[in-house]
């Protein structure tokens, strides 16, 4: 009686994958002529291979992630080289602020405010996971501050701080997802509802959206999926 162990199983896979020498391939082919079970086995794995290949997903996000990384290392280096030329840079920045449309400018500003707070270790002025306590604290400092929503779905509510955006004070609510800090700036605004629109500013992901009379800007080093998930959480909790 033949047993399955006598069949060249490892070699069959190597044959299928084109990994055998000419001699090895010939030996397997000789066995296949005589053995219908191995032929069937080979056929099964050939269809499995076709099936897996057809299920291969595209992953174009990977290319934007790569660009994000190379941009980051580039700008880090540039900053380092430019230490001597701060004055020159500052005038370039003023020019840029005058030329860049408001939305793009906001993307940059939001990222700068976030980066400054994170780098200085002052992300949180009030540490709390209680939305009511955060609202009381914020309302005393920023007129018309928007009530934050509690954490959930992997997002922890960490606290709040007050920033200045385009010359006016703004309430910043801080969440954390895994090891990423997410800042959410929110204010009452008459603009129509808008789905989250992510964009990149250096290594930061910025995402703006509006819902039910509130405009939101979110910024983090987390990816766009995370920011969209937080937007969904806030939307759900506020309706």
């Amino acid at each position: 009686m033949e047993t399955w162990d006598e069949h060249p199983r490892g070699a069959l896979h190597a044959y299928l994958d084109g990994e055998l020498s000419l001699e090895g391939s010939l030996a397997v082919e000789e066995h296949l002529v005589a053995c219908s079970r191995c032929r069937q086995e080979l056929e099964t794995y050939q269809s499995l291979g076709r099936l897996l290949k057809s299920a291969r997903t595209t992953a174009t996000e990977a290319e934007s992630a790569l660009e994000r990384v190379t941009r980051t290392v580039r700008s880090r280096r540039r900053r380092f080289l430019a230490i001597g030329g701060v004055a020159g840079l500052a005038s370039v920045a003023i020019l840029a602020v005058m030329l860049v449309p408001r939305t793009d400018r906001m993307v940059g500003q939001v990222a700068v405010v976030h980066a400054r707070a994170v780098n200085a270790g002052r992300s949180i002025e009030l540490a709390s996971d209680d939305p009511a306590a955060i609202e009381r604290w914020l309302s005393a400092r920023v007129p018309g501050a928007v009530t934050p929503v509690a954490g959930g779905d992997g997002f922890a509510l960490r606290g709040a701080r007050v920033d200045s955006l385009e010359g006016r004070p703004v309430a910043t609510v801080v969440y954390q997802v895994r090891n990423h800090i997410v800042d959410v700036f929110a204010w009452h605004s008459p603009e129509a509802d808008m789905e989250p629109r992510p964009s990149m500013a250096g290594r930061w992901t910025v995402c703006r959206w509006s819902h039910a009379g509130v405009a939101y800007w979110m910024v983090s080093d987390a990816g766009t999926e995370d920011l969209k998930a937080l937007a969904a959480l806030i939307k759900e909790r506020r309706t």
Partner: protein
Amino acid sequence: MDEDARDFEQFARPHAQAALRLARALVRNEADAQDVLQDSFLRAFRHFRGFSGESPRAWLLAIVRNVSFTLWRRTGVDEPADLEQRLEAEPDPLPSPEARLLESCDADTVHAALDRLPRLHREVLVLREMEECSYREMASILGVPIGTIMSRLSRARAQLVRELVGDPRSRKN
């Protein structure tokens, strides 16, 4: 100049999608996969000037795998260390005359079935069938001998067929 950044982009771009697909297969969660990918690119950038191997793809994918390990260590969701021995101790896969049944499966079914496999099996299947890595590349990515690649692949394929069309051992012939 930004020569390093530009060179790195050229070096890594052809393999970027493969890197994300492997990250997805390993961590099974889009947000974590994106984190793993970004971290892998940063590490690869720091070291790519010293790369002297034959396959940039294998080198990059090995980094993706290592970064995933650190994530597992942090979150404590990795599989037990003796998994390989336990998989090896299972009876040899039986022949599975199911070619026709496989043809009716769609992509979602395939991904769901892959997600149910142990990581050791998932990764060899993704590397071989989706990325078309050679055994040599796989051996270098996974840090095991080519013989191990062959036996893992053989078990992984048999197990995936069982996941997709049911266990032939539980059927009457």
